[in-house]
């Protein structure tokens, strides 16, 4: 029989764990709301920029020299921007992204370098002895576009200098509060989808000219794409943590109930034993 003292101690410890997980759940809920809003707010801008690039690239035609960031080359080296969270306790979120990038690296015949954003992914890649070229951690819960400019700069510099020939971005896409999906998308060379409204834009006035505008648009496109991926990751992280912490709290309650039952049984048994002892003692005396 376990002593009631040890049982009481365990109950207290489970109780305080439940308190912590409940608090974390509530914090994550609040943060999730803001992160989701932020992710949604940035959408019009990134939609608009992608559309503009599509339209511009269409009128530029195929004969013209493309922007250096749109040029396709033979792929000899690949870079992956690997976005994870800084903190754990959010279910399988980070492991999912890690697995996605991991399998991707292993399936490639050519060297892959990494730009790690977030501690969890960085640690994973370092453990796996992968080539982590740069790392960015502690971006916080509400990064500004300004904060992520160094990241896109590294990637664009490497691409223009020919050090890498293809850049992917891996992050957890926020589908809903319950579902987050790890995805990998191509970032560079900037892909051009076929434009539908070629006619509409062809008689535009461009100041100073269309090449210049396109040249300025593409870096911003890369910036926003990375920024957006980070925002999605943060929203995913918070909602994953909320769900994980809710499960933890529920589990703690279950454990508590069981422990209380065992404790009560043990206490009753102890009382019965004591009574028996007293009765036995009395019988001897009489």
């Amino acid at each position, binding site marked *: 029989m376990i002593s009631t003292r040890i049982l009481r101690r365990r109950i207290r410890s489970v109780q305080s764990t439940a308190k912590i997980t409940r608090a974390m759940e509530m914090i994550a809920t609040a943060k999730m709301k803001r992160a989701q809003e932020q992710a949604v707010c940035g959408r019009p801008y990134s939609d608009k920029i992608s559309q503009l690039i599509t339209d511009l690239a269409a009128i530029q035609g195929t004969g013209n020299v493309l922007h250096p960031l749109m040029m396709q080359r033979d792929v000899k080296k690949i870079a992956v921007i690997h976005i994870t969270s800084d903190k754990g306790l959010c279910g399988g979120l980070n492991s999912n992204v890690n697995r996605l990038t991991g399998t991707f690296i292993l399936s490639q015949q050519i060297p892959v370098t990494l730009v790690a954003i977030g501690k969890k992914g960085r640690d994973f890649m370092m453990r796996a002895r992968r080539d982590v070229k740069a790392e960015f951690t502690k971006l916080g819960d509400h990064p500004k576009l300004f904060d992520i400019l160094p990241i896109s700069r590294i990637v664009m510099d490497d691409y223009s200098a020919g050090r890498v020939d293809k850049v992917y971005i891996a992050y957890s896409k926020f589908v809903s509060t319950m579902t987050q999906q790890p995805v990998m998308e191509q970032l560079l060379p900037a892909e051009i989808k076929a434009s539908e409204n070629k006619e509409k834009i062809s*008689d535009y006035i461009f100041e100073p000219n269309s090449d210049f*505008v396109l040249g300025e*648009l593409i870096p911003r496109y890369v910036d926003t794409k990375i920024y957006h991926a980070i925002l999605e990751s943060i929203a995913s992280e918070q909602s994953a943590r909320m769900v994980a912490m809710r499960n933890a709290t529920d589990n703690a309650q279950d454990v508590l109930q069981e422990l209380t039952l065992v404790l009560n049984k043990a206490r009753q048994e102890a009382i019965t034993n004591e009574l028996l002892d007293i009765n036995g003692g009395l019988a001897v005396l009489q």
Partner: protein
Amino acid sequence: MATIKLEIVTAEQQIFSDEVDSILAPGIDGELGILPHHAPLMTMLQPGELVIRKGGEESDFAVTGGFLEVLPDKVIILADACERSDAIDTARAEAAMKRAEEQLKATGPGLPEDHARAEASLRRALARLKVASKARRKQQRPPLNQQQQQS
């Protein structure tokens, strides 16, 4: 009177979306006035002041660069950063200005990139300060439009 729909968005949020009478924007090749029925246009913006007129009222914004697109039915401004004149953090802009000036002095001809960056941030800070000071002056004085209408 005809109006035109204006949308200002940054990467972080949508700042403005409404029907307006006219827009005065700092295009890269000079100030740019846009009235309804303007021809389709696409231009870069430079750091400066963006004035929106609506029903005799003027609102000022500071933009630090971006793109302006005029479509047949609306105008879209993709701003790098944009603030309404009363939301500008003057102290921060002043600090940024001082920092940029120091950097300008510190960077010699050997570092053309740093020099250009310092100059760009100086221009952004100046644009913010200009819009902010204009807004303050306006507060002290009754609006110009009303005086004109009365006379």
